[in-house]
């Protein structure tokens, strides 16, 4: 039985009530070949902005996976957001490559630790890493905290540990970083605005 694409859809539409393709007698291969859905039709659309420069073009990310338990959403396409008043759907060569950032083979997947003198990392748990860093920081702070300067004035600062914050992190992450870093008394603190 030879059917054109149009006839196939007509037939299958007419046969919707109660019958499957197989019951109509179509070869399975033909049915599969004919029904090809629009790739993005079953994705979830989420709005974001490009993380690179400060034009901040709008992007739409399309992910597969319905975010149910044990079903991890994964982005399969990113494109410009035509509603964005600055970018109007455009992306530059960097923005156009965003999907390759999301799925870069260089993405870090779990905490790692490099011991003194070693030439590489080993995998560790979050709990172990957090605990070890917290101890190192506290030890350094307790040992080197400067309560008063040479003139005897209160300075309450910790100079032997510093931090560089990420200019691509959100304002909310940045503010939490500010809160914690300043409460520890750290002064050697910058972001990429300095370079």
């Amino acid at each position, binding site marked *: 039985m030879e059917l054109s694409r149009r006839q196939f859809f007509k037939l299958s539409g007419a046969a919707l009530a109660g019958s499957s393709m197989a019951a109509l007698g179509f070869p399975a291969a033909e049915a599969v070949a004919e029904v090809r859905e629009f790739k993005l039709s079953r994705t979830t659309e*989420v709005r974001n902005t490009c*993380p*690179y420069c*400060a034009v*901040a073009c709008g992007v739409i*990310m399309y992910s597969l996976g319905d975010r149910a338990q044990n079903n*991890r*959403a994964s982005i399969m396409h990113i494109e410009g957001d035509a509603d964005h*008043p*600055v970018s*109007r759907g455009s992306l*530059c060569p*960097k923005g*156009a*490559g965003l999907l390759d*950032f*999301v799925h*870069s083979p260089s993405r870090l*997947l*779990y905490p*790692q630790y*490099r011991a003194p*003198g*070693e*030439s590489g990392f080993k995998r560790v748990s979050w709990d172990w890493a957090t605990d*070890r*860093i917290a101890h190192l*920081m*506290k030890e*350094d702070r307790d040992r*080197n*905290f400067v*309560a008063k300067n040479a003139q005897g004035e*209160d300075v309450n600062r910790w100079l*032997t*540990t*510093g*931090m560089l914050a*990420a*200019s*691509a992190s*959100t*304002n*909310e*992450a*940045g*503010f*939490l*970083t*500010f809160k914690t*870093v*300043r409460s*520890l*008394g750290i*002064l*050697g603190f910058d*972001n*990429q605005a*300095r*370079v």
Partner: protein
Amino acid sequence: MTNNWIDIKNANVILVMGGNTAEAHPVGFKWVIEAKARNKATLIVVDPRFNRTAAVADVYVPLRAGTDIAFLGGVINYLLTKDAIQHEYVKAFTNASFIVKDGFGFSEGLFSGYDSDKREYDHSTWDYELGPDGYVQVDETLQHPRCVFQLMKQHYSRYTPEVVVNVTGSPKDKFLEVCKLIASTAALNRTMTSLYALGWTNHSVGTQNIRCMAIIQLLLGNVGMSGGGLNALRGHSNIQGLTDLGLLSNLMPGYLTLPAAAEPNLATYLAKRTPKPLRPGQLNYWSNYPKFFVSLMKVLYGPAATKENDYGYGWLPKLDRVDHEYDMLRVQDLMVQGKMNGYICQGFNPLQASPNKAKTLAGLGKLKFLVVIDPLATETSAFFENHGEYNPADSSKIMTEVFRLPSICFAEDEGSLTNSSRWLQWHYRGQDPPDEARTDIDIIAALFLRIRELYRKEGGVFPEPILNLHWPYLIPERPMPAELARELNGYAITDVKDPQDPTKVLVKAGQQLATFAQLRDDGSTACGCWIYSGCWTEKGNQMARRETHDPGDRGLVPGWAFSWPANRRILYNRASCDANGKPWDPNRPLIHWNGTKWVGLDVPDYVPTAAPSKDMGPFIMHPEGVGRLFSRAFVKDGPFPEHYEPFETPLGTNPIHPKVVTNPVARVYKDDHSELGNSSEFPYVGTTYRLTELFHYWSKHCLINAILQPQQFVEISEQLAAEKGIVNGGEIIVTSARGRIRAVAVVTKRIKPLTVNGKVIQHVGIPIHWGFTGLTRKGFPANVLTPCVGDANTQTPETKAFLVNVERA
């Protein structure tokens, strides 16, 4: 940006100098093309290289890297000698008529008050003459020999076209053509916009490069105008936000500053930061400093911040000097001296980004521990690995403990980023973090809570600020972005009452504030960043708004996201109207006075009900109410910008004043000074830049981008190539006093030799992007070559003008 990306379309003249918008901000650059196509705008590019922006410019002028002040000083001289200025604006809206103290002067490269031992100025003469009433004395005729206008005229009279051409190497006819085009925007119905980026900031005179343009735009009446302004095109997606939030060594959120050791209590701290008006009738908005500060302390320390304990003032770390004491270059230097033990790098790759890579490599190796929080395997996190000539580290000798913590990328994150236009745009999570990766918020929270727990259990040194840090989050280990955004906006702790009518409650306890105008200094309000107030009000998340309507077609889109401050789209917009409140140009209306209040397309940058008068100036953040042609003591290297040579000068002299060659107050450490090269050994000017396909050292981890720019190259002129026997596509070695890189030579017509002070100067163009991790071929980051010399005000390194040599490999 004083203005915003879309507003570029309203300009008549667009000057791209100190940046390469087409390459680095290509989608924003669409609005430059829009201006050219629809507004018949003229695009001018001034740059050492005929770059991608120059390729579509109407006028391109080459200049020697590091001589922008000479060029722009020449423009100022042109405007003043041709009287091509917006006279009413200059008189009413700038400090041109203000009289400067007797004793202020400039001679042979130095302003008054220089101390050569300390390499510092005593700024006492760099200020206005005050009258017996405490206000600045003015001369409305602008004739007083010590009024700002006359001093400025005198200062820039030295920058004749001949001097400009001799220093910059720019062709005289091109320079004059640019002057004429810029001057054309002194007309009421024409504006110029200035687009700049790191091409202006990465110099030992970076701040003064920008100050030059501020002077020019004030003289032309272009500040506050639609299609005008000073527009810094920022590099990272949230570099504006992190700066606004004070994540810099000397800052706190909303451009509040950390206390100095000499300020023992809140009263002394606030007294120094709460200015008094310098002219009658000024709004002097920084007089509200105590409200911003106390409200910030209430967010930081919550109920533990009380009036009795100065709202926790004593818990803040204090600087000996309130400048950039512990900036990145200083920390790098302390590291090499073995004075740093720990370093946390969150989404920051200093091994690639800090100048003088060898110094950073040595410094990191002296740390006890390094924590890298990043979505990608960066060079910094792998600094101890040996990658041959690309990273000559000896792992066995490096005793640093290194932690590499996987954070999420943008696609897995929720929150706001502040773009160059000051727009806070909210974004949402589109996929789950891969494997065990966590958000930066969760990582920071976990670390802090663990440290706090240790202080609770074991005690320790000065635990109060740690134990008392306000942590009101529903799930303490996972603060929600919405919770943090609400803190940034601010909320009422107790009822906030109307100061005019105390029976009227403006904001009920627990409610979100509508604006920073509701902040109080009595502990009744909390606000994490006063300029962000309005971002998450009782009406909800204003940053997530997506209305695209644009009344008046001026590119303001007021219903899209939230623009700080107060959703204002163009800063200083009061200056777009004359003294009577009528727009200078009826065809570019932003706001106007309707007889009872200010109305219009934008949120007025003024008291909405204050009648226009000569008294209250449009620059409401300044205690003098006007724009500063003379910057008083706010800029360390002079109230007027002056040309100083880069620290590595190809001339060996300063043709304008040979006794003072380089910036006399820029800080250079001893070891760094000994690593500066001279022009006999390193005869060419190296300059660094980005390519459109790659983002710093980040997108070389993305396959498409790595394919587009797979391998390191360096650009040189045809003449230099011929002289050195270098062929296009051949290998070359580029050296500086700090290091050596090997790259493919791109021999190009886009770089041309310039004749400067009787000498032929060659530029060597060095894109920054390669390293020893990622998907491209291995390469050398440009910072192998760059010097540790910082701008005198910001300590931003001089990576746009330094000395190199090139040889065939």
